[in-house]
Protein backbone atom coordinates (compact mmCIF):
# COMPACT_ATOMS: atom_id res chain seq x y z
CA UNK A 1 0.00 0.00 0.00
CA UNK A 2 1.99 3.00 1.22
CA UNK A 3 5.31 1.11 1.32
CA UNK A 4 8.00 0.50 -1.24
CA UNK A 5 8.91 -3.05 -2.15
CA UNK A 6 12.22 -2.85 -0.29
CA UNK A 7 10.43 -2.05 2.98
CA UNK A 8 11.34 1.62 3.32
CA UNK A 9 8.31 3.65 4.25
CA UNK A 10 7.44 6.17 1.61
CA UNK A 11 5.41 9.28 2.28
CA UNK A 12 1.87 8.42 1.29
CA UNK A 13 0.81 10.11 -1.89
CA UNK A 14 -2.43 12.05 -1.85
CA UNK A 15 -4.23 9.43 -3.94
CA UNK A 16 -3.13 6.76 -1.48
CA UNK A 17 -4.66 8.45 1.61
CA UNK A 18 -7.93 6.85 0.58
CA UNK A 19 -9.95 9.19 2.84
CA UNK A 20 -9.65 12.90 3.33
CA UNK A 21 -13.30 13.45 3.93
CA UNK A 22 -15.97 10.87 3.24
CA UNK A 23 -19.59 10.82 4.31
CA UNK A 24 -20.23 8.29 7.09
CA UNK A 25 -22.54 5.35 6.34
CA UNK A 26 -26.22 6.23 6.46
CA UNK A 27 -26.88 4.01 9.51
CA UNK A 28 -24.17 5.77 11.54
CA UNK A 29 -25.50 9.18 10.61
CA UNK A 30 -29.07 8.20 11.50
CA UNK A 31 -27.94 6.76 14.84
CA UNK A 32 -26.33 10.10 15.65
CA UNK A 33 -29.67 11.88 15.20
CA UNK A 34 -31.18 12.37 18.68
CA UNK A 35 -34.66 13.28 17.43
CA UNK A 36 -34.79 10.09 15.38
CA UNK A 37 -33.71 7.96 18.35
CA UNK A 38 -36.40 9.53 20.50
CA UNK A 39 -39.03 9.03 17.82
CA UNK A 40 -38.08 5.35 17.69
CA UNK A 41 -38.49 5.06 21.46
CA UNK A 42 -41.92 6.68 21.24
CA UNK A 43 -42.87 4.27 18.46
CA UNK A 44 -41.73 1.30 20.55
CA UNK A 45 -43.72 2.55 23.56
CA UNK A 46 -46.83 2.97 21.40
CA UNK A 47 -46.32 -0.58 20.13
CA UNK A 48 -46.01 -1.92 23.70
CA UNK A 49 -49.13 -0.02 24.73
CA UNK A 50 -51.12 -1.38 21.80
CA UNK A 51 -49.86 -4.90 22.49
CA UNK A 52 -50.68 -4.82 26.21
CA UNK A 53 -54.15 -3.35 25.58
CA UNK A 54 -54.90 -6.06 23.03
CA UNK A 55 -53.74 -8.73 25.47
CA UNK A 56 -55.66 -7.27 28.46
CA UNK A 57 -58.73 -6.74 26.27
CA UNK A 58 -60.42 -4.35 28.72
CA UNK A 59 -61.17 -1.03 26.94
CA UNK A 60 -62.97 0.31 30.02
CA UNK A 61 -59.82 0.17 32.13
CA UNK A 62 -57.07 0.34 29.53
CA UNK A 63 -58.01 1.48 26.02
CA UNK A 64 -55.54 0.73 23.27
CA UNK A 65 -53.27 3.27 21.59
CA UNK A 66 -55.40 3.27 18.46
CA UNK A 67 -58.61 3.87 20.44
CA UNK A 68 -56.96 6.76 22.27
CA UNK A 69 -55.82 8.34 19.03
CA UNK A 70 -59.30 7.89 17.62
CA UNK A 71 -60.88 9.55 20.66
CA UNK A 72 -58.33 12.37 20.48
CA UNK A 73 -59.06 12.90 16.81
CA UNK A 74 -62.85 12.74 17.24
CA UNK A 75 -62.89 15.22 20.12
CA UNK A 76 -60.44 17.49 18.34
CA UNK A 77 -62.57 17.53 15.20
CA UNK A 78 -65.81 18.09 17.14
CA UNK A 79 -64.11 21.07 18.79
CA UNK A 80 -64.73 19.91 22.38
CA UNK A 81 -61.10 19.23 23.14
CA UNK A 82 -59.89 22.36 21.37
CA UNK A 83 -62.33 24.55 23.31
CA UNK A 84 -61.38 23.00 26.66
CA UNK A 85 -57.67 23.33 25.87
CA UNK A 86 -58.27 26.95 24.87
CA UNK A 87 -60.02 27.61 28.20
CA UNK A 88 -57.12 26.08 30.11
CA UNK A 89 -54.51 28.02 28.16
CA UNK A 90 -56.35 31.29 28.63
CA UNK A 91 -56.40 30.89 32.42
CA UNK A 92 -52.81 29.68 32.30
CA UNK A 93 -51.56 32.77 30.45
CA UNK A 94 -53.47 35.07 32.81
CA UNK A 95 -52.11 33.41 35.95
CA UNK A 96 -48.60 33.12 34.54
CA UNK A 97 -48.61 36.78 33.52
CA UNK A 98 -49.74 37.95 36.95
CA UNK A 99 -47.13 35.75 38.65
CA UNK A 100 -44.31 37.02 36.39
CA UNK A 101 -45.28 40.61 37.13
CA UNK A 102 -45.38 39.97 40.87
CA UNK A 103 -42.07 38.08 40.77
CA UNK A 104 -40.42 40.99 38.93
CA UNK A 105 -41.80 43.37 41.54
CA UNK A 106 -40.55 41.21 44.42
CA UNK A 107 -37.11 40.63 42.92
CA UNK A 108 -36.86 44.36 42.23
CA UNK A 109 -37.79 45.12 45.83
CA UNK A 110 -35.22 42.62 47.04
CA UNK A 111 -32.57 44.26 44.86
CA UNK A 112 -33.12 47.77 46.18
CA UNK A 113 -33.37 47.21 49.93
CA UNK A 114 -31.79 44.73 52.26
CA UNK A 115 -35.09 44.37 54.11
CA UNK A 116 -36.75 43.41 50.81
CA UNK A 117 -34.00 40.85 50.29
CA UNK A 118 -34.63 39.31 53.72
CA UNK A 119 -38.38 39.38 53.17
CA UNK A 120 -38.12 37.60 49.82
CA UNK A 121 -35.69 34.96 51.13
CA UNK A 122 -37.92 34.21 54.12
CA UNK A 123 -41.13 34.12 52.10
CA UNK A 124 -39.70 31.89 49.38
CA UNK A 125 -38.13 29.54 51.89
CA UNK A 126 -41.47 29.29 53.70
CA UNK A 127 -43.89 29.10 50.80
CA UNK A 128 -41.89 27.33 48.08
CA UNK A 129 -42.28 23.86 49.68
CA UNK A 130 -46.05 24.32 50.03
CA UNK A 131 -47.80 22.52 47.13
CA UNK A 132 -50.05 25.02 45.39
CA UNK A 133 -52.95 22.59 45.24
CA UNK A 134 -52.97 22.43 49.04
CA UNK A 135 -54.10 26.05 49.01
CA UNK A 136 -57.15 25.27 46.87
CA UNK A 137 -59.56 24.70 49.79
CA UNK A 138 -58.55 28.04 51.25
CA UNK A 139 -58.86 29.69 47.84
CA UNK A 140 -62.38 28.27 47.48
CA UNK A 141 -63.26 29.70 50.87
CA UNK A 142 -61.92 33.13 49.97
CA UNK A 143 -62.81 33.47 46.31
CA UNK A 144 -65.53 30.87 45.76
CA UNK A 145 -65.82 28.61 42.76
CA UNK A 146 -64.40 30.19 39.65
CA UNK A 147 -61.38 31.51 37.87
CA UNK A 148 -60.10 33.73 40.74
CA UNK A 149 -59.50 30.65 42.89
CA UNK A 150 -57.55 28.89 40.14
CA UNK A 151 -55.56 32.08 39.50
CA UNK A 152 -54.73 32.30 43.20
CA UNK A 153 -53.23 28.82 43.40
CA UNK A 154 -51.46 29.24 40.05
CA UNK A 155 -49.85 32.49 41.06
CA UNK A 156 -48.67 30.77 44.21
CA UNK A 157 -47.22 27.92 42.14
CA UNK A 158 -45.30 30.23 39.79
CA UNK A 159 -44.37 33.19 41.94
CA UNK A 160 -41.96 31.59 44.43
CA UNK A 161 -39.74 29.51 42.15
CA UNK A 162 -39.59 32.39 39.67
CA UNK A 163 -38.77 35.02 42.29
CA UNK A 164 -36.21 32.69 43.85
CA UNK A 165 -34.45 32.11 40.52
CA UNK A 166 -34.58 35.75 39.46
CA UNK A 167 -33.20 36.84 42.79
CA UNK A 168 -30.41 34.26 42.65
CA UNK A 169 -29.65 35.46 39.12
CA UNK A 170 -29.47 39.10 40.14
CA UNK A 171 -27.26 38.38 43.15
CA UNK A 172 -24.98 36.29 40.94
CA UNK A 173 -24.16 39.15 38.55
CA UNK A 174 -20.42 39.65 38.90
CA UNK A 175 -18.99 42.79 40.49
CA UNK A 176 -16.96 43.41 37.35
CA UNK A 177 -20.07 43.57 35.14
CA UNK A 178 -21.78 45.83 37.68
CA UNK A 179 -18.79 48.15 37.74
CA UNK A 180 -18.55 48.10 33.94
CA UNK A 181 -22.20 49.14 33.76
CA UNK A 182 -21.89 51.93 36.29
CA UNK A 183 -18.65 53.05 34.67
CA UNK A 184 -20.59 53.46 31.45
CA UNK A 185 -22.79 55.96 33.27
CA UNK A 186 -25.80 53.72 33.92
CA UNK A 187 -27.92 53.86 37.06
CA UNK A 188 -31.48 53.24 38.16
CA UNK A 189 -33.86 51.62 35.67
CA UNK A 190 -31.51 51.71 32.62
CA UNK A 191 -28.89 49.94 34.75
CA UNK A 192 -31.38 47.19 35.64
CA UNK A 193 -32.63 46.85 32.05
CA UNK A 194 -29.24 46.97 30.29
CA UNK A 195 -27.01 45.18 32.81
CA UNK A 196 -28.80 43.24 35.54
CA UNK A 197 -31.60 41.59 33.56
CA UNK A 198 -29.46 40.35 30.63
CA UNK A 199 -26.68 39.26 33.00
CA UNK A 200 -29.17 37.33 35.14
CA UNK A 201 -31.10 36.03 32.14
CA UNK A 202 -29.95 32.38 32.34
CA UNK A 203 -31.35 32.13 35.88
CA UNK A 204 -34.48 34.09 34.97
CA UNK A 205 -35.15 31.79 32.03
CA UNK A 206 -34.74 28.73 34.28
CA UNK A 207 -37.24 30.32 36.67
CA UNK A 208 -39.67 30.92 33.82
CA UNK A 209 -39.36 27.28 32.71
CA UNK A 210 -39.83 25.86 36.19
CA UNK A 211 -42.69 28.28 36.77
CA UNK A 212 -44.36 27.23 33.54
CA UNK A 213 -44.17 23.54 34.45
CA UNK A 214 -45.61 24.22 37.92
CA UNK A 215 -48.37 26.40 36.48
CA UNK A 216 -49.48 23.80 33.94
CA UNK A 217 -49.60 20.98 36.50
CA UNK A 218 -51.35 23.07 39.12
CA UNK A 219 -53.91 24.29 36.63
CA UNK A 220 -54.87 20.79 35.47
CA UNK A 221 -55.00 19.56 39.06
CA UNK A 222 -57.15 22.48 40.18
CA UNK A 223 -59.52 21.99 37.27
CA UNK A 224 -60.01 18.36 38.30
CA UNK A 225 -61.26 19.41 41.72
CA UNK A 226 -63.16 22.31 40.34
CA UNK A 227 -64.67 21.24 37.17
CA UNK A 228 -67.57 19.75 39.13
CA UNK A 229 -69.38 23.05 39.06
CA UNK A 230 -68.01 25.21 36.28
CA UNK A 231 -69.75 24.75 32.93
CA UNK A 232 -66.99 25.89 30.62
CA UNK A 233 -64.19 23.91 32.28
CA UNK A 234 -60.74 23.30 30.86
CA UNK A 235 -58.69 20.22 30.12
CA UNK A 236 -58.78 18.98 33.71
CA UNK A 237 -62.53 19.13 33.67
CA UNK A 238 -62.59 17.31 30.32
CA UNK A 239 -60.63 14.45 31.90
CA UNK A 240 -62.84 14.36 34.98
CA UNK A 241 -66.04 14.47 32.91
CA UNK A 242 -64.98 11.61 30.65
CA UNK A 243 -63.98 9.50 33.62
CA UNK A 244 -67.48 9.95 35.03
CA UNK A 245 -68.95 8.90 31.68
CA UNK A 246 -66.54 5.94 31.58
CA UNK A 247 -65.15 7.23 28.26
CA UNK A 248 -61.73 5.97 29.23
CA UNK A 249 -60.22 6.49 25.78
CA UNK A 250 -61.10 10.19 26.06
CA UNK A 251 -59.48 10.32 29.51
CA UNK A 252 -56.32 9.03 27.88
CA UNK A 253 -56.75 11.53 25.06
CA UNK A 254 -57.02 14.34 27.62
CA UNK A 255 -53.89 13.18 29.41
CA UNK A 256 -52.04 12.97 26.09
CA UNK A 257 -53.05 16.53 25.31
CA UNK A 258 -51.66 17.69 28.66
CA UNK A 259 -48.36 15.99 27.84
CA UNK A 260 -48.30 17.28 24.26
CA UNK A 261 -48.84 20.89 25.25
CA UNK A 262 -46.20 20.63 27.96
CA UNK A 263 -43.70 19.27 25.45
CA UNK A 264 -44.62 21.78 22.74
CA UNK A 265 -44.18 24.81 24.97
CA UNK A 266 -40.84 23.50 26.19
CA UNK A 267 -39.57 22.50 22.75
CA UNK A 268 -40.90 25.39 20.72
CA UNK A 269 -41.13 28.36 23.06
CA UNK A 270 -38.40 27.93 25.66
CA UNK A 271 -35.85 26.23 23.46
CA UNK A 272 -36.26 28.93 20.82
CA UNK A 273 -35.77 31.65 23.41
CA UNK A 274 -32.75 29.77 24.73
CA UNK A 275 -31.19 29.37 21.30
CA UNK A 276 -31.55 33.06 20.50
CA UNK A 277 -30.33 34.31 23.85
CA UNK A 278 -28.26 32.44 26.40
CA UNK A 279 -26.86 29.87 23.96
CA UNK A 280 -25.94 32.50 21.40
CA UNK A 281 -24.26 34.54 24.13
CA UNK A 282 -22.25 31.57 25.37
CA UNK A 283 -23.86 31.81 28.82
CA UNK A 284 -25.21 28.26 28.51
CA UNK A 285 -23.80 25.31 26.65
Amino acid at each position, binding site marked *: MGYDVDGIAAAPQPEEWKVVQRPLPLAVRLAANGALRRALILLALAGLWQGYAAWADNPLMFPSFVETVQALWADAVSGVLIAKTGNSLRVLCLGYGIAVGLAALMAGLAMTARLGDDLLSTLTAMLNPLPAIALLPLALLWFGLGTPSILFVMVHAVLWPLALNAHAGFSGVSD*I*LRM*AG*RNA*GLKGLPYIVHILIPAAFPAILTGLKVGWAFAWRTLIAAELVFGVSSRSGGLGWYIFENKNRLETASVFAGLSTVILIGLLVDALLFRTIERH*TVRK*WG*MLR
Partner: protein
Amino acid sequence: MEAMPTGTPFGTVDAGRKPPLLHVEGATLQYRTHRHLVTATYRVGFDVFAADRFILLGPSGCGKSTLLKAIAGFVKPVEGGIFLHGRPVDRPGPDRMMVFQEFDQLLPWKTVRDNVAFPMLSSRKFGRREAHERAKRYIDLVNLGKFAASYPHQLSGGMKQRVAIARAMAMEPDILLMDEPFASLDALTRRKMQDELLAIWRQVRCTIVFVTHSIEEAILLGSRILVLSPHPGRVRALWETGRDRGGEASSEEFRALHDAIEEILFGESLMQEGAGI
Protein backbone atom coordinates in the same frame (compact mmCIF):
# COMPACT_ATOMS: atom_id res chain seq x y z
CA MET B 1 6.47 60.41 57.35
CA GLU B 2 9.74 60.43 55.48
CA ALA B 3 10.26 62.70 52.54
CA MET B 4 9.13 61.40 49.21
CA PRO B 5 12.03 60.82 46.82
CA THR B 6 11.10 62.28 43.49
CA GLY B 7 14.28 62.83 41.54
CA THR B 8 15.78 59.95 39.62
CA PRO B 9 18.91 59.49 37.56
CA PHE B 10 16.73 59.09 34.48
CA GLY B 11 14.18 61.83 34.74
CA THR B 12 13.59 65.26 36.08
CA VAL B 13 10.71 66.71 38.02
CA ASP B 14 9.17 69.45 35.99
CA ALA B 15 8.03 71.90 38.65
CA GLY B 16 6.55 74.51 36.34
CA ARG B 17 3.93 72.28 34.80
CA LYS B 18 0.31 73.03 34.04
CA PRO B 19 -2.21 72.17 36.79
CA PRO B 20 -2.67 68.42 37.07
CA LEU B 21 -5.52 66.59 35.37
CA LEU B 22 -5.93 64.33 38.38
CA HIS B 23 -4.97 65.37 41.87
CA VAL B 24 -4.96 62.84 44.71
CA GLU B 25 -4.40 64.38 48.10
CA GLY B 26 -3.74 62.45 51.31
CA ALA B 27 -6.20 59.74 50.31
CA THR B 28 -6.84 57.12 53.00
CA LEU B 29 -8.95 54.29 51.64
CA GLN B 30 -10.63 51.56 53.62
CA TYR B 31 -12.77 48.62 52.65
CA ARG B 32 -14.75 46.10 54.63
CA THR B 33 -14.39 42.34 54.40
CA HIS B 34 -16.76 39.99 56.22
CA ARG B 35 -14.78 40.26 59.45
CA HIS B 36 -12.39 43.19 59.18
CA LEU B 37 -12.10 46.80 58.25
CA VAL B 38 -8.96 47.00 56.12
CA THR B 39 -7.00 50.15 55.45
CA ALA B 40 -5.89 49.83 51.85
CA THR B 41 -3.93 53.06 51.51
CA TYR B 42 -2.81 55.62 54.06
CA ARG B 43 -2.51 59.28 53.06
CA VAL B 44 -1.44 58.68 49.51
CA GLY B 45 -1.01 61.68 47.26
CA PHE B 46 0.11 62.24 43.68
CA ASP B 47 -0.65 64.22 40.54
CA VAL B 48 -1.34 62.93 37.05
CA PHE B 49 -0.84 65.27 34.11
CA ALA B 50 -2.32 65.14 30.63
CA ALA B 51 -0.80 62.44 28.40
CA ASP B 52 0.97 60.79 31.33
CA ARG B 53 1.37 57.05 31.37
CA PHE B 54 1.13 56.95 35.14
CA ILE B 55 1.92 53.63 36.80
CA LEU B 56 0.79 52.56 40.27
CA LEU B 57 3.34 49.89 41.14
CA GLY B 58 3.49 47.74 44.24
CA PRO B 59 3.14 44.25 45.67
CA SER B 60 -0.23 42.79 46.55
CA GLY B 61 -1.73 44.50 49.57
CA CYS B 62 -0.44 47.96 48.71
CA GLY B 63 -3.93 49.15 47.82
CA LYS B 64 -3.15 50.00 44.22
CA SER B 65 -6.34 48.45 42.87
CA THR B 66 -8.42 50.10 45.58
CA LEU B 67 -6.76 53.39 44.69
CA LEU B 68 -7.74 52.93 41.06
CA LYS B 69 -11.31 52.07 42.07
CA ALA B 70 -11.37 55.23 44.17
CA ILE B 71 -10.30 57.28 41.14
CA ALA B 72 -13.04 55.53 39.18
CA GLY B 73 -15.51 56.61 41.88
CA PHE B 74 -16.41 53.17 43.24
CA VAL B 75 -14.72 53.75 46.62
CA LYS B 76 -14.91 56.94 48.67
CA PRO B 77 -11.79 58.06 50.58
CA VAL B 78 -12.31 58.24 54.35
CA GLU B 79 -9.70 60.99 54.48
CA GLY B 80 -8.26 63.27 51.85
CA GLY B 81 -9.68 63.70 48.39
CA ILE B 82 -9.47 62.89 44.71
CA PHE B 83 -9.93 65.71 42.23
CA LEU B 84 -10.41 65.55 38.49
CA HIS B 85 -10.00 68.94 36.79
CA GLY B 86 -10.13 70.36 40.31
CA ARG B 87 -13.58 68.89 41.00
CA PRO B 88 -13.94 66.14 43.62
CA VAL B 89 -14.65 62.66 42.29
CA ASP B 90 -17.76 61.34 44.03
CA ARG B 91 -19.28 58.75 41.70
CA PRO B 92 -18.40 56.51 38.76
CA GLY B 93 -18.68 58.18 35.41
CA PRO B 94 -17.80 57.77 31.75
CA ASP B 95 -15.12 60.49 31.96
CA ARG B 96 -12.93 57.86 33.66
CA MET B 97 -13.15 54.61 31.72
CA MET B 98 -11.89 51.51 33.46
CA VAL B 99 -10.28 48.40 31.96
CA PHE B 100 -10.32 45.48 34.39
CA GLN B 101 -8.10 42.45 34.69
CA GLU B 102 -11.02 40.04 34.43
CA PHE B 103 -12.11 38.77 31.04
CA ASP B 104 -15.79 38.90 32.00
CA GLN B 105 -15.88 42.68 31.90
CA LEU B 106 -17.46 42.52 28.43
CA LEU B 107 -21.22 42.14 28.17
CA PRO B 108 -21.68 38.56 26.91
CA TRP B 109 -24.99 39.41 25.24
CA LYS B 110 -23.49 42.03 22.96
CA THR B 111 -21.24 41.61 19.95
CA VAL B 112 -17.78 43.18 19.94
CA ARG B 113 -19.17 46.12 17.96
CA ASP B 114 -22.05 46.69 20.38
CA ASN B 115 -19.81 46.23 23.41
CA VAL B 116 -17.55 49.02 22.19
CA ALA B 117 -20.47 51.26 21.23
CA PHE B 118 -22.38 50.57 24.45
CA PRO B 119 -20.82 53.15 26.83
CA MET B 120 -20.85 55.78 24.11
CA LEU B 121 -24.60 55.26 23.68
CA SER B 122 -25.60 54.76 27.32
CA SER B 123 -23.72 57.87 28.44
CA ARG B 124 -25.27 59.82 25.53
CA LYS B 125 -21.86 61.32 24.86
CA PHE B 126 -22.13 60.40 21.20
CA GLY B 127 -25.03 60.02 18.78
CA ARG B 128 -25.94 56.62 17.40
CA ARG B 129 -24.18 57.01 14.07
CA GLU B 130 -21.08 58.60 15.50
CA ALA B 131 -20.87 55.95 18.21
CA HIS B 132 -20.89 53.17 15.64
CA GLU B 133 -18.35 54.92 13.44
CA ARG B 134 -16.06 55.43 16.41
CA ALA B 135 -16.59 51.83 17.53
CA LYS B 136 -15.47 50.64 14.10
CA ARG B 137 -12.40 52.89 14.13
CA TYR B 138 -11.26 51.73 17.56
CA ILE B 139 -11.97 48.07 16.84
CA ASP B 140 -9.72 48.44 13.80
CA LEU B 141 -7.15 50.17 15.99
CA VAL B 142 -6.89 47.09 18.22
CA ASN B 143 -6.80 44.83 15.14
CA LEU B 144 -10.14 43.14 15.68
CA GLY B 145 -11.89 44.33 12.53
CA LYS B 146 -12.68 40.76 11.49
CA PHE B 147 -14.33 39.98 14.82
CA ALA B 148 -16.66 42.97 15.08
CA ALA B 149 -19.73 40.75 14.78
CA SER B 150 -18.46 38.05 17.18
CA TYR B 151 -19.69 37.53 20.70
CA PRO B 152 -17.18 37.72 23.58
CA HIS B 153 -17.33 33.97 24.29
CA GLN B 154 -15.94 33.35 20.81
CA LEU B 155 -12.78 35.38 21.54
CA SER B 156 -9.53 34.50 23.29
CA GLY B 157 -8.48 36.22 26.51
CA GLY B 158 -6.14 38.63 24.74
CA MET B 159 -8.82 39.57 22.23
CA LYS B 160 -11.30 40.24 25.03
CA GLN B 161 -8.82 42.60 26.68
CA ARG B 162 -8.32 44.38 23.35
CA VAL B 163 -12.08 44.86 23.08
CA ALA B 164 -12.16 46.27 26.60
CA ILE B 165 -9.34 48.67 25.72
CA ALA B 166 -11.10 49.72 22.52
CA ARG B 167 -14.33 50.22 24.47
CA ALA B 168 -12.62 52.44 27.02
CA MET B 169 -10.58 54.43 24.50
CA ALA B 170 -13.46 55.01 22.09
CA MET B 171 -15.19 56.96 24.86
CA GLU B 172 -12.32 59.45 24.75
CA PRO B 173 -12.28 59.63 28.55
CA ASP B 174 -10.27 62.21 30.47
CA ILE B 175 -8.35 59.33 32.01
CA LEU B 176 -8.05 55.70 31.06
CA LEU B 177 -7.86 53.54 34.19
CA MET B 178 -6.27 50.13 33.72
CA ASP B 179 -6.29 47.59 36.52
CA GLU B 180 -3.63 44.98 35.64
CA PRO B 181 -5.31 44.47 32.27
CA PHE B 182 -2.67 42.01 31.05
CA ALA B 183 -2.11 40.05 34.25
CA SER B 184 -4.37 37.15 33.24
CA LEU B 185 -2.73 36.71 29.83
CA ASP B 186 0.04 34.30 28.91
CA ALA B 187 3.53 35.81 28.74
CA LEU B 188 3.73 36.02 24.94
CA THR B 189 0.35 37.64 24.54
CA ARG B 190 1.13 40.00 27.39
CA ARG B 191 4.31 41.22 25.69
CA LYS B 192 2.42 41.78 22.45
CA MET B 193 -0.38 43.66 24.20
CA GLN B 194 2.11 45.93 25.97
CA ASP B 195 3.68 46.89 22.65
CA GLU B 196 0.25 47.41 21.13
CA LEU B 197 -0.85 49.62 24.00
CA LEU B 198 2.23 51.81 23.52
CA ALA B 199 1.63 51.96 19.78
CA ILE B 200 -1.97 53.04 20.36
CA TRP B 201 -0.88 55.58 22.95
CA ARG B 202 1.52 57.14 20.44
CA GLN B 203 -1.46 57.66 18.15
CA VAL B 204 -4.04 58.99 20.60
CA ARG B 205 -1.84 60.39 23.43
CA CYS B 206 -4.44 59.68 26.08
CA THR B 207 -3.84 59.91 29.82
CA ILE B 208 -3.44 56.49 31.39
CA VAL B 209 -3.30 55.38 35.01
CA PHE B 210 -2.08 51.81 34.96
CA VAL B 211 -1.93 49.45 37.93
CA THR B 212 0.62 46.63 37.93
CA HIS B 213 2.73 44.53 40.27
CA SER B 214 5.36 43.88 37.61
CA ILE B 215 8.39 46.17 37.74
CA GLU B 216 9.18 45.27 34.16
CA GLU B 217 5.75 46.19 32.92
CA ALA B 218 5.93 49.44 34.87
CA ILE B 219 9.22 50.48 33.26
CA LEU B 220 8.13 49.29 29.83
CA LEU B 221 4.85 51.18 29.81
CA GLY B 222 5.19 54.06 32.22
CA SER B 223 6.32 57.62 31.81
CA ARG B 224 5.94 58.14 35.56
CA ILE B 225 5.97 55.39 38.17
CA LEU B 226 4.55 55.67 41.67
CA VAL B 227 5.95 52.94 43.93
CA LEU B 228 3.71 51.90 46.83
CA SER B 229 4.55 49.82 49.91
CA PRO B 230 2.03 47.40 51.39
CA HIS B 231 -0.06 47.13 54.59
CA PRO B 232 -1.29 49.79 54.34
CA GLY B 233 -0.37 51.25 50.95
CA ARG B 234 1.90 54.28 51.23
CA VAL B 235 3.94 56.18 48.69
CA ARG B 236 7.56 55.00 48.61
CA ALA B 237 8.87 56.80 45.56
CA LEU B 238 7.91 58.55 42.36
CA TRP B 239 10.08 57.88 39.32
CA GLU B 240 9.90 60.14 36.33
CA THR B 241 11.24 57.98 33.55
CA GLY B 242 9.67 60.29 31.07
CA ARG B 243 10.27 58.36 27.92
CA ASP B 244 8.68 55.85 25.70
CA ARG B 245 10.86 52.76 25.91
CA GLY B 246 8.77 50.19 24.10
CA GLY B 247 10.74 47.08 23.18
CA GLU B 248 13.83 48.12 25.13
CA ALA B 249 13.49 45.56 27.87
CA SER B 250 17.13 44.50 27.83
CA SER B 251 18.99 47.80 27.80
CA GLU B 252 21.47 48.84 30.48
CA GLU B 253 19.30 51.73 31.57
CA PHE B 254 16.31 49.47 31.92
CA ARG B 255 18.24 47.10 34.19
CA ALA B 256 19.48 49.91 36.39
CA LEU B 257 15.97 51.30 36.83
CA HIS B 258 14.63 47.81 37.48
CA ASP B 259 17.24 47.22 40.20
CA ALA B 260 16.63 50.60 41.79
CA ILE B 261 12.87 50.02 42.07
CA GLU B 262 13.41 46.46 43.27
CA GLU B 263 15.74 47.83 45.94
CA ILE B 264 12.99 50.14 47.20
CA LEU B 265 10.37 47.39 47.33
CA PHE B 266 12.73 44.71 48.61
CA GLY B 267 14.38 46.99 51.17
CA GLU B 268 10.96 47.84 52.48
CA SER B 269 9.99 44.24 53.01
CA LEU B 270 13.28 43.56 54.83
CA MET B 271 12.62 46.53 57.07
CA GLN B 272 9.19 45.18 57.93
CA GLU B 273 10.53 41.76 58.77
CA GLY B 274 13.15 43.45 60.95
CA ALA B 275 10.38 45.29 62.74
CA GLY B 276 8.93 41.96 63.73
CA ILE B 277 5.69 42.00 61.78
